[in-house]
């Protein structure tokens, strides 16, 4: 319908995934602002390139594939971006006249969330696979399709990711894992 020119049909198409998009993007990028930017960019690209979507493939996997790429791109940009001069020199930055943006403060609090702390133990690839398989509950085949990789690669990375997550939970939050021991 969207391809036939009914642009308003796009919203019901992506509505079921709006929370998932934001969650995955947040867990990959590590802050809410970047997550929203990545999710926005994903939706815009999905609309623009909807004709390229293979109808034999799942739309959700295709959408998640775009999202992972966008979030990865954004994270790489942030990592490569030079630090502000004061931060790089180790001096305390003067607060802005109107104080820190509420979104930033919220993001900073969230970055310290337990799950995010554990996810830092994983490599980028392992994190993407772990999020898609164990948090978003995609099957191994679907995760492989979304990431454009093989099922074997997904299994290998998933196995490593689960091992690291188990160790992270046991060491960082032993009180969370009393029944784990």
């Amino acid at each position, binding site marked *: 319908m969207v391809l036939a020119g009914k642009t308003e049909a*796009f919203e019901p198409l992506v509505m079921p995934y709006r929370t998932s998009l934001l969650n995955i993007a947040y867990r990959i990028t590590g802050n809410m602002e970047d997550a929203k930017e990545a999710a926005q960019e994903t939706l815009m690209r999905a609309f623009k390139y909807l*004709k390229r979507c*293979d109808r034999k493939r799942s739309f959700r996997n295709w959408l998640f594939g775009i999202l992972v790429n966008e979030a990865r791109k954004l994270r790489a940009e942030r990592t490569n971006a030079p630090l502000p001069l004061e931060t790089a020199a180790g001096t305390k930055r003067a607060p802005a006249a109107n104080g820190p943006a509420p979104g930033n403060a919220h993001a900073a609090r969230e970055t310290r969330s337990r799950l995010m702390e554990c996810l830092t133990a994983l490599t980028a690839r392992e994190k993407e696979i772990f999020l898609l398989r164990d948090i978003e509950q995609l099957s191994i085949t679907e995760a492989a399709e979304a990431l454009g990789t093989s099922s074997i690669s997904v*299994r290998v990375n998933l*196995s490593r990711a689960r091992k690291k997550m*188990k160790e992270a939970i046991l060491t960082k939050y032993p009180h969370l894992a009393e029944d*784990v021991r």
Partner: protein
Amino acid sequence: MNCRRIRRSIPLLAGNDLPERKARRLRVHLERCEMCRKDFRRYSAALRKVKELADRETTSEWTATEWRALMARTTSARTEKRPFVSSVFGPRPMTALARGLAGAVPAVVIGLVLWNTVLKPKSSPVVPAPAYVRKPEPAPPILPPALQNKNDEKEPAVRSEEKSITVAQAQEHERPATRPKEPAAAQKEASQDVVSVTLVSQDSGLKVVWFLNRNFEWKGEGK
């Protein structure tokens, strides 16, 4: 299966990501091995915890205003015009090309094999004659029987019985003739019972002549 191999598969077993057959084998091992069982329990509990945390720590949602603005911005953008190649070959032209090649290559190979085995007219390979083999005499022209008889009268008794041949001629000799033989030609061929092969050593100049019958059986040698 030993414990080391089992433990490599436990993370996948904990998330039900193993094929049923392998999972069954692993469970049989877990029933017997206390250490592996404990490891499996740890993985399962860790995964459960992670899922709990993920559910509890659900990140903030889009506000209604944000979502409406985003949808308005998204749908106001133009969709990509489908490129000509995609419209002809589908969304993945390179995949279509690869599929086409994958179909065409075996077809070409099968075609070549068929051509070589069934369709191509047979021709004997021409083996270059060694230098020491005498040059073949030009074959007599095929004439109608009447004229051929005249020629036979002129020429004395169908040349000599002893005749040197080239390797190519020898092969020709072995192969049955494709066209029906003229009676006179058949008679002539019947009279060529003995053939000779002359071997000359390039180093010493020694010359040996072998005599063979029409079945290429060795009959003797001369110098």
